[in-house]
């Protein structure tokens, strides 16, 4: 731990917030936005879980949004979101699965909230079952287990470590890399018991970092929201709040000199990554070394790097903040000239590079 805190105290809390995560047979649902933001992350999840770990991870193209963004933006009522979710559960039931794994944090929170609401108000569940039947003649079983896809990677973190090609270690000095973990708010703040490690000291990403050789950075604003908060970012007039929250986090983590940030939410990595450019433009301030930013990874991208996948296959060229300083530290080999080659070596064009924050 890159801090003076008492590790045993954290371990005690972690031991109190463990959840039952079955080892196989998961019904996986993708996020609305992650494939646009971090196009290879969900692909890496299925690649790692199916092909590296040999797990049964089922997907269906009939899956839709869970309604979480609209619900959190206050544009649809909760009953509508519940009926959408009921349909997802029906798809899971029809496919013969009992364990439900969303890739999105807000979805995870949405599912957790709906299941808990139904537990407390069974008459509402009955009404939603009726709505679903009227709408599309489907019926559903509730999932036996609900886990976020980061819970699964956490669950299999040691198996991934055993197959690691690279560690979260500075290949030059042998020192562990200092990694900031950022947890999406909807992961455990609403239901601390549903998150690995709880809400104050979540272990889900810290566990991966430790298992893969890195050092977790605990800085004062660790639990602070990234600032995305749908209504904040989606309404341009509110974007200042979004930017300012991210700024607050960077100012707080700056003295710890993190080598990278890892996140488990669709929005957080996007904003922690992109706002670094905006902060550099507006404030002339950068947080990485030598004018670079701090690379921000999804946990699938981090797992992919650890397992030795090509960084450009992981989509890291689509990040705003250059990831090369991290790749160099980890000793990951990459071909700079292949950075902007897409599938089948097709040129995907080069972005215009900003002057305020150093990029490759």
């Amino acid at each position, binding site marked *: 731990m890159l801090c003076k805190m008492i590790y045993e105290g954290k371990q005690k809390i972690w031991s109190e917030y463990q959840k039952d995560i079955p080892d196989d047979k998961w019904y996986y649902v993708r996020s609305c936005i992650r494939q646009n933001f971090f196009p290879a992350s969900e692909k890496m999840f299925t690649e790692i879980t199916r092909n590296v770990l040999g797990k049964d991870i089922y997907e269906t193209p009939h899956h839709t949004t869970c309604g979480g963004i609209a619900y959190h933006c206050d544009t649809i009522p909760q009953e509508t979101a519940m009926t959408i979710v009921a349909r997802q559960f029906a798809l899971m039931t029809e496919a013969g699965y009992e364990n439900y794994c969303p890739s999105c944090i807000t979805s995870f929170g949405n599912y957790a909230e709906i299941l808990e609401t139904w537990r407390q108000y069974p008459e509402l569940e009955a009404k939603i079952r009726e709505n679903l039947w009227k709408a599309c003649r489907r019926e559903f079983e509730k999932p036996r287990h609900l886990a976020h896809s980061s819970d699964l990677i956490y669950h299999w973190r040691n198996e991934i470590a055993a197959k690691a090609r690279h560690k979260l270690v500075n290949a030059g000095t042998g020192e562990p890399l200092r990694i900031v973990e950022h947890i999406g708010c909807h992961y455990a703040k609403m239901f601390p018991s549903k998150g690995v490690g709880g809400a104050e000291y979540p272990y889900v990403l810290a566990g991966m970092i430790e298992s893969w050789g890195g050092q977790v950075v605990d800085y004062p604003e660790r639990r602070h929201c990234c600032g995305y908060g749908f209504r904040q970012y989606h309404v341009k007039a509110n*974007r*200042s709040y979004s*930017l*300012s929250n991210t700024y607050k986090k960077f100012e707080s983590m700056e003295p710890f000199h993190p080598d990278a940030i890892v996140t488990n939410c669709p929005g957080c990595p996007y904003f922690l990554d992109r706002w670094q450019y*905006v902060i550099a433009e507006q404030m002339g301030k950068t947080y990485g070394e030598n004018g670079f930013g701090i690379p921000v990874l999804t946990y699938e991208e981090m797992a992919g790097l650890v397992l030795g996948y090509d960084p450009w296959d992981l989509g890291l060229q689509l990040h705003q903040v250059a990831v090369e300083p991290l790749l160099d530290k980890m000793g990951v080999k990459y071909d700079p000239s292949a950075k902007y080659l897409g599938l089948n070596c097709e040129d995907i064009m080069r972005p215009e590079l900003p002057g305020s924050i150093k990029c490759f």
Partner: protein
Amino acid sequence: MTDFGFTLSRSSTLDLQRVDEERFEQLCKLEKGASVCIGCGSCSATCPAGALSGMSLRKILLAVQRGQEVRTMLQCCMLCGKCTMVCPRGINTRNLILSICSIYD
């Protein structure tokens, strides 16, 4: 600098450690009662200038404690003495106000 149409918001967070307490400490020397306010608001409730000008002795004293500006509000005081009458902690508010004036002069 690129114009994004939005920029960093100014944080209203009060950083206690950066609060300049010099004036408040000075005030406590001039008027011991400055330290025993319990923020009950009796003074502000009864202040004849309060409803019309936003004058509030409770807020003024808190602002001095937090190292903030108070002059504008202070100017509205008419030194009528009603706040001295109602203060449950028996603070000599007249001396308090005059002391704040002398410090912020």
